[in-house]
């Protein structure tokens, strides 16, 4: 029987499984509510209690909202960051570079973080470009910049692979022409001179005279490449006083094939194969003592799994915070019930059954908890949206935090647990003596 159930469960669509989990998590709260309020209509009285002590109630709701928002914001933010960084690396199937650190190379070639890395020579590049099943072997030559935008040398084929058709203008066709990323503040026709290096240490005079004009604009990619300026790799070599990748008789050519004898070197090569299986074969072929081949997606997954461990610790901290706040709120409710003990005693004196008073107190506590949880959901969403925008601004990686099932599950579990615990102040209110409370 359990196996049958397990099989049935595994056959369900993921969204259905999540919806079922949500209902199961909410079920204790719903059942408790039905059981406690059966036969009574406590809401009118609850409404008046909420209004009478509105400021105190608002404080309780705000406390719950902050603790719930923390948990929701954390999980939504982490997921947004994970998806954003993965999306930014999606176009980079396989990177081949000189041996070294995969992570350093991934940050440099995929996320355009400045880094000094060794170069692959012409023979190595030629071996990659002419290998079986290679559809695209694009040099990615980074190191120069202009006002914070990395200037990257590559081929027209790489630009097409990265963003498809240009949104404006045309592809670079000669040294001195450039394509601007979607977030680069340079219009078509604007001219600039790249600096050697990046950041504060950049040498602005090193490439004096190498004036470059923007001739096209790329579509947005949601990656640091939106802030990059792409130039022919030949131009990068030429401004550094090197051969331009082609024999003298073909010196005007832009893009492949390159002549190994005139190929000065490139920090990285993006490799795309015709079929997925060929990517694995190429990775194996170019994992040698002279070349390093890696899948940025796999390296990123390793980082994400590390992030996942941190997320678990942080989620635990968020849950502990929620539990602490809940304990505080419930203690507060016990005190609050004392505040309106005279009214409850009056109800009892008027002949209201004990269970009705119990239902009123529990419903009152549950409304506060539910309102706090919903407000917390909104607060968490808003906070993660603001943080995402800030991360996107700082890293140029489009991070979009959105609410999903894990957040709904977290809140459903929190609501169920706390409304169940709210039975406690309701029970305590029943034990209060009627006559002294009436006199108080």
């Amino acid at each position, binding site marked *: 029987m359990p196996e049958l159930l397990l099989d049935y469960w595994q056959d369900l669509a993921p969204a259905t499984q999540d919806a079922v989990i949500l209902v199961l998590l909410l079920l204790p709260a719903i059942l408790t509510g039905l059981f406690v309020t059966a036969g009574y209509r406590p809401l009118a009285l609850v409404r008046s209690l909420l209004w009478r002590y509105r400021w105190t109630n608002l404080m309780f709701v705000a406390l719950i909202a902050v603790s719930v928002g923390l948990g929701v914001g954390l999980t939504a933010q982490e997921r947004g960051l*994970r*998806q954003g*960084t*993965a*999306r930014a690396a*999606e176009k980079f199937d396989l990177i081949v570079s000189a041996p070294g650190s995969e992570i350093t190379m991934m940050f440099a070639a995929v996320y355009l973080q400045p880094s000094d890395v060794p170069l692959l020579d012409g023979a190595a590049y030629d071996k990659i470009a002419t290998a079986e099943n290679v559809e695209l072997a694009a040099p990615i030559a980074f190191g120069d910049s202009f006002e914070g935008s990395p200037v990257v040398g590559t081929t027209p084929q790489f630009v097409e692979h990265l963003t498809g058709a240009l949104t404006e203008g045309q592809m670079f066709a000669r040294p001195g022409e450039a394509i601007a990323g979607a977030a680069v503040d340079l219009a078509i026709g604007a001219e600039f001179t790249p600096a050697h290096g990046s950041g504060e240490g950049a040498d602005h005079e090193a490439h004096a005279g190498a004036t470059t004009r923007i001739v096209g604009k790329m579509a947005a990619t949601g990656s640091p490449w939106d802030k990059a300026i792409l130039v022919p790799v030949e131009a990068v070599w030429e401004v550094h006083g090197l051969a331009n990748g082609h024999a003298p008789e073909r010196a005007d050519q832009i893009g492949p094939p390159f002549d190994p004898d005139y190929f000065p070197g490139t920090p990285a090569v993006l490799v795309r194969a015709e079929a*997925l*299986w060929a*990517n*694995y*074969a190429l*990775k*194996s*072929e170019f*994992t*040698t003592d002279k070349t390093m081949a890696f*899948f940025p*997606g*796999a*390296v*990123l*997954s*390793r980082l*994400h799994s590390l992030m996942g461990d941190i997320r678990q610790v942080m989620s635990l901290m968020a849950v502990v915070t929620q539990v602490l706040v809940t304990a505080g709120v419930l203690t507060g409710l016990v005190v609050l019930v004392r505040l309106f003990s005279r009214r409850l005693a009056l109800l009892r004196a008027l002949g209201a059954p004990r269970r009705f008073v119990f239902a009123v107190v529990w419903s009152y506590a549950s409304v506060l908890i539910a309102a706090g949880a919903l407000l917390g959901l909104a607060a968490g969403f808003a906070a993660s949206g603001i943080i995402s925008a800030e991360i996107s601004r700082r890293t140029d990686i489009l991070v979009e935090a959105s609410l999903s099932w894990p957040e709904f599950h977290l809140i459903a579990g929190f609501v169920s647990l706390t409304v169940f615990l709210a039975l406690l102040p309701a029970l305590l209110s029943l034990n209060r003596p009627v006559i002294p409370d009436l006199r108080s």
Partner: protein
Amino acid sequence: MLANFAVSCSLLAALSVPAFSEDAAGHHHGEAEHVSELGGVRIVHAWTRATEDEEALVFFELENGSDKTVTLIGGESEAASAVALVGIDFKGGEAKLVPLPQVPVKPGSELHLDPESLALQLTGLTAPLKQGDVVEVEVQLDLGHLDVDVEVEAADAKGHSHAGHSH
């Protein structure tokens, strides 16, 4: 005479008891061979993770020491109803298994089947895999079949316990 008979009996007993016990599901519990070799092609450090599920991923290192390209195609095992070559694709941030027809390995190259790239996927496992078990898998290459002892590591293992040792 009696002494000779006793020695013969104990020798016979020793020969008839296998070095490890094996069950019908193709598992055995004992020392696994870390290296399998066929025509200059070696498979080392084959491992999988302990699981109660009906599926498992098998990882190993394939070293092509021959002078021609060798193609990894898939495999067979008594412990599973099917063995297929899969790629682990991380596009979109989630690991997704993609069936692959084959992966060629150039002479002198190594192909690493690991949790971040490639695996042989066992489906329809006949019994749960417990840490310490050894599963026999016949790896299918274009040049023939290679019997490999796959060691079952912990359910959350990230590599073979002997990874990094040279054999």
